[in-house]
C-alpha cells in the first residue's frame, strides 16, 4: 500500500470540516475588508485559528455611514419593539451557546466551565438590557414642577452614532456589555472588536443578523485597534465613543483618542483605571445605568397651560 492510499483510508471515517471565513459586519452584510487585508488569529497557546479581516479606515467610514443610516429607524422604533429585539438576541445566542463556549474557550484560554459561565452571563446581559428599553425614560425622565403655568417634561433621547472600542480580553461578555447599553436606547454603533480575540465577535454578528436587529444598528470591524480607532475618534459624524477597549490595546493611548474626540465634542466613556492607565474591568460584575446614561441626551419640552 502506498503512503497516499493509506492516508486516504485513514480519513474515510473522519469528515474534513468546512471552515468559516471570518468577515466584517457592516450594514447587515458580511463584507471582507475593502483593503483586501487579513491577519492571523491564534488561540491562547498560539495555535492558528483563522484569518480575520483587517479592517481599514475606509471600512470604518463605511460603518459610520451604515450606522447613521440606521439611526432614524432604530431610534424611532418603539421602546417595546427595541426591547423585544434585544431579548431576541438572547434567544438566538442561547441556541448557539455551544459554539460561543468553544470560541470563547479558544480565544481566552479559559476552562470549559468558565467559558460556560461567561457565555451565560453574556446572554443574561441581553435579557437585563432588553428590560431597560421601556424603563429608561421612566427612571431618568420626568415632570418638572416649574413655577408658572407650563407643562414641562424632560425625557432621554439617544445621542446618535456611538463608536465603541470593545474590550481586548473579554471577547464576548465584554463585547456585549458595551454594545447592549448603547443600542438599547436607540443609538447605533460602530464597534472595533478585540484585536487578538475577534472570533466570538464575528460569530456574535451572525446572531445579530438573525435576531431582527436592523442592519446598521451594530457594525463590527475586526483589525488593529491602533490603526482604526483614531479614525473613529476623529470622525465628525460619530456622536460618542466608548474607550473601554483602549486598555491593553497595543499602541493605543486613550488620552489621544479623547483629544481627537473633542473636535466635535463627542461624549466620551473613558476606560477604567487611574490616571493615564487603562485597565479592563471585571465584566462579570452586575451592570448599572452608567453606560446607558453615557449615550443619552435629555430633551426638555415646555408647553403653556391655559383655557
Amino acid at each position, binding site marked *: 500500500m502506498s503512503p497516499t492510499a493509506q492516508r486516504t483510508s485513514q480519513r474515510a471515517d473522519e469528515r474534513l470540516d468546512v471552515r468559516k471565513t471570518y468577515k466584517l459586519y457592516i450594514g447587515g452584510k458580511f463584507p471582507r475588508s475593502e483593503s483586501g487585508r487579513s491577519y492571523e488569529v491564534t488561540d491562547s497557546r498560539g495555535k492558528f485559528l483563522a484569518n480575520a479581516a483587517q479592517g481599514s479606515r475606509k471600512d470604518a467610514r463605511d460603518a459610520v455611514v451604515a450606522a447613521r443610516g440606521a439611526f432614524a429607524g432604530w431610534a424611532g422604533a418603539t421602546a417595546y419593539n427595541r426591547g423585544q429585539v434585544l*431579548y431576541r438576541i438572547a434567544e438566538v445566542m442561547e441556541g448557539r451557546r455551544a459554539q460561543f463556549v468553544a470560541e470563547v474557550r479558544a480565544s481566552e484560554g479559559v476552562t470549559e466551565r468558565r467559558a460556560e459561565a461567561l457565555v451565560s452571563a453574556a446572554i443574561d446581559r441581553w435579557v437585563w438590557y432588553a*428590560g431597560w428599553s421601556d*424603563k429608561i425614560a*421612566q427612571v431618568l425622565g420626568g415632570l418638572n414642577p416649574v413655577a408658572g*403655568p407650563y407643562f414641562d417634561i424632560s425625557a432621554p433621547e439617544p445621542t446618535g452614532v456611538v463608536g465603541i472600542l470593545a474590550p481586548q480580553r473579554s471577547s464576548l461578555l465584554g463585547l456585549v456589555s458595551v454594545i447592549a447599553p448603547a443600542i438599547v436606547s436607540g443609538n447605533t454603533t460602530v464597534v472595533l472588536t478585540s484585536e487578538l480575540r475577534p472570533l466570538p465577535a464575528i460569530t456574535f454578528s451572525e446572531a445579530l443578523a438573525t435576531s431582527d436587529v436592523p442592519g446598521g444598528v451594530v457594525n463590527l470591524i475586526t483589525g488593529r485597534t491602533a490603526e482604526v480607532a483614531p479614525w473613529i475618534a476623529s470622525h465628525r459624524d460619530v456622536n460618542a465613543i466608548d474607550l473601554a477597549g483602549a486598555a491593553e490595546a497595543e499602541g493605543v493611548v486613550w488620552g489621544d483618542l479623547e483629544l481627537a474626540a473633542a473636535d466635535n465634542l463627542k461624549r466620551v466613556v473613558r476606560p477604567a483605571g487611574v490616571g493615564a492607565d487603562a485597565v479592563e474591568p471585571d465584566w462579570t460584575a452586575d451592570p448599572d445605568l452608567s453606560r446607558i446614561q453615557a449615550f443619552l441626551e435629555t430633551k426638555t419640552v415646555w*408647553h403653556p397651560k*391655559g*383655557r
Partner: protein
Amino acid sequence: MAKFEYAPAPESRAVVDLKPSYGLFINGEFTDSEGGSAFKSISPATEEVLAEVTEASPADVDRAVAAARRAFNGPWGRMSGADRGKYLFRIARILQERAREFAVLESLDNGKPIRESRDVDVPLAAAHFFYHAGWADKLEYAGLGAGARPHGVVGQVIPWNFPLLMLAWKIAPALATGNTVVIKPAETTPLSALLFAEVLQQADLPPGVVNIVTGAGTTGQAIVDHPDIDKLAFTGSTGVGKMIARSIAGTRKKATLELGGKAANIIFDDAPIDQAVEGIVNGIFFNQGHVCCAGSRLLVQESIADEVEKRLKRRLATLRVGDPLDKNTDVGAINSKAQLSRITELTDAGEAEGAERWDNGCPLPDKGFWFRPTVFTGVSQTHRIAQEEIFGPVLSVLTFRTPHEAVAKANNTPYGLSAGIWTEKGSRILWMADQLRAGVVWANTFNKFDPTSPFGGYKESGYGREGGKHGLAAYVTTGDTK
C-alpha cells in the same frame, strides 16, 4: 352604484381545543374541587355551552392560598429577580406564540369582536408580561423606597370585560415584585384564565406561584376574607369594591381597587370633528361599552352640538353588530343576560326621565344577548343615564358653553376614572387636564392602554394604579410589619 354587502369573514374556531369540563388550577396542576359545585360558561353570542367549570368552595380557596404561601416561603421567595424575570419573559413569549388561540377563545367566551381580542386584548396582555419581566431585576431603580419587598400572597379578583388582559394586569406586576397569587376570573368568562394555566405549565413556573380558582361571588368573598392573604387587587364594580374595602377594614390587608367610571368625553368647537367622532365611537362602543373607562358621557360644546350629533349618527349607522368571530364585526354580544337586563333597565329609565333615544336600527341575531348602539340626546345631569354606569353601548349627550362649565359637568360624578378632551389648542388640553378629577386623561384620542402607563381612578373609581412604576408600588411594602 350598487351597494356591496360584506361577505361573512369568520375566524376559525378550530384553533381552540376546549375540554368538556375544567377543575381548579392549584399548585401547578388541575385538581377537583372539595365540596364545590359546577357551572357552565356559555357563548353570549349563541348561548351555546362552551365548557363546564368549577365553582371553588372556601376549602378550595384555602388549598390555593396554602399552595401560594408554600411557593412564597419556598422557591419563589428565594428566587433572584433575574430568574423571576425570565419566567415572565417566557410567559410573554408563549402568549405571543398562542395569540390566535387566545383571541378566538376570548371572543367565544366574552362576546367581544375578534378584531379587538386579536389586536388589543391579547397583544396588550403579552406586552404587560414583557414589560414587567424587565422590572423583576430592576426594582431598586423603580423608586419604591428602601427595603421594598413583596407583600406575600396576593388575592386577585378580575372582571369579565377584558378577561385575559385584566389577568395580565394583575399577575404580571405581582410576580415581578416577588408575590405569589390566587386569582379568580369572572364567572361568565373563566376560559381564557384556564387556558392561561397551560401557559404557566409550558413555562415551567414553579407550582403554587399562580393559582387559578374559578367561581362567582362566594368564591371571591372567600378570597377576600382569607386570613392568610396579604393583599387584594380587585377590578370590577364600585359596589363590590366598597364591600371589599369594608371587609378588610381593621385588618392589615392591603388593597388596590379599580372600579367603575362615568367618563366625560369633551368636544370643543375647534376640535377636528371627524377625528372626534371616531374618538367618541371608540370611546363608548369599543368592547360593547363594557369598559370601566368608557367615554359614556359626551360633553359637546353647544355651537357644534348639532353638527357632531349628525355626523355621529351617520357614523353609527355603519357599525356592524353581530358574530364576534366575524372579522368585520365592530360591536359584539353583550356579555350576559344579567348585563343586558341592566342596560335595558337604565335605557328605559333614560326614556322615562325625558331624554331622547336613538339607535342605529341595525339587525340583531336571533340568539344570544345583543344591544344596538344607542345615543341619548337632551340628557340632563340628574338623569340616571348621566349618573350611573351603564356598562353597555349607550352614549349620553350633554352640552356646555365654556371650559369652566365643561369642567364642572365632567367632574359632577362620584366617579373619576378617565376623561377625554378634543381640541386643537394644546394649552387648553393641559389646563383641562389639570382641572379634571380623573386618573387618566386622553387628549385627541381615547381608550389607549400601555403597560408603561399607570391606570386607575380618583374618588369612587377606586385607588391604586396598574401599569408603569406606579403599578409596581401596589405590590410592595416598605412597612416594618407585614
